[in-house]
């Protein structure tokens, strides 16, 4: 599936560029995007080192486990396949809270950490585990409470009420998240039988 989408993005783009006489943009865009990938990754390395260092401290101090225990009951409902004291749970909570608070920079390291922990409990290392699917659905549907970037754009565009979209945004996010969690149950069950 990903292979096909990747190929379609590439081939479709190049084909359209060729037909519309914009083939030069392909070269420029490809090189620029490759450069940007390195930039993004290196920026991430700094922030990630900071948070993973802090996360290690929190783990050794027993704080992550404490938080995981606090949210345990709710999480066990969503992640029935995980051990109740799984270290992945702590990282998942940190990722979701960072997302909700709009700390995108901190959310990614916790998210990648959660994936590493989930992978340790995954019996088939090349295939996504049900817990990973649930986590990613939660991660991509439950996002920020205050969409700061878009509010800034609205402010600059001279909106009379730049923040009036916060309520609707939370509503739409909530719907998406609820739908994701319900659909996740069905998909998971469908896979087993």
């Amino acid at each position, binding site marked *: 599936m990903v292979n096909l989408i990747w190929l379609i993005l590439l081939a479709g783009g190049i084909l359209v560029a060729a037909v519309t006489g914009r083939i030069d943009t392909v070269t420029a865009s*490809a090189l620029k995007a490759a450069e940007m990938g390195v930039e993004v990754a290196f920026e991430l390395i700094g922030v990630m080192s900071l948070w993973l260092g802090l996360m*290690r401290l929190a783990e050794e101090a027993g704080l992550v486990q404490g938080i995981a225990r606090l949210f345990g009951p709710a999480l066990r409902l969503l992640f029935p396949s995980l051990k109740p004291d799984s270290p992945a749970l702590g990282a998942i909570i940190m990722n979701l809270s960072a997302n909700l608070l709009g700390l995108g920079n901190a959310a990614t390291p916790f998210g990648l950490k959660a994936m590493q922990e989930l992978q340790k409990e995954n019996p088939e290392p090349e295939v996504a585990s049900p817990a990973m699917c649930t986590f990613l*659905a939660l*991660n991509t549907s439950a996002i920020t409470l205050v969409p700061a970037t878009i509010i800034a754009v609205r402010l600059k565009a001279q909106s009379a009420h730049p923040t009036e979209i916060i309520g*609707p945004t939370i*509503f739409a996010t909530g719907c998406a998240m609820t739908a994701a969690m319900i659909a996740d149950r069905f998909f998971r069950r469908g896979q087993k039988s």
Partner: protein
Amino acid sequence: MSALGEISRWAIPFLLLVIPVVAFLRKIPVYESFVSGAEEGFKTGVRILPFLIGMLVAMRIFIDSGALELLGRALRPVLLRLGLDPNLTAIIPLAIMRPLSGSGSLGVATQLIYRYGPDSFIGRLASTLQGSTDTTFFVLTVYFGSVGIRKYRYALKLGLLADLVGLLAAIWIVTKVF
């Protein structure tokens, strides 16, 4: 809402203070522990680099070549025949772009907000959409890539389904509230 803003402002300094202090009180060699954890940051960054580059290159080409715009234009008559409100066609490019690229969709949303006005129907819808769904496709490829997962099972379907529900919910609520 300002309370939430305050929490966001204090969250990081709070964590930076509380975690090391608690760890120190529990007799953990705080500095050495921090460094050994931070080491993982570099490894993870290097591991996701090829996935980032692969996706960014393909997406940039698709967007810059005009293929995305073309796709939006091709979808318009189909969606109109399916009963889409003609007022909503302006949002099609954003709806396609949102799961693929964060910076790309922010660009499209910004254009829409300026062109139609931030307090217009399209402006509000674009704002709500940009804030309420994530770059599902991009997140999946990078997160799965970082741990070497090749088979996504139903994860992509699930993520895109959530995006679709988010889109419909955004249209509904913006129509209702304003």
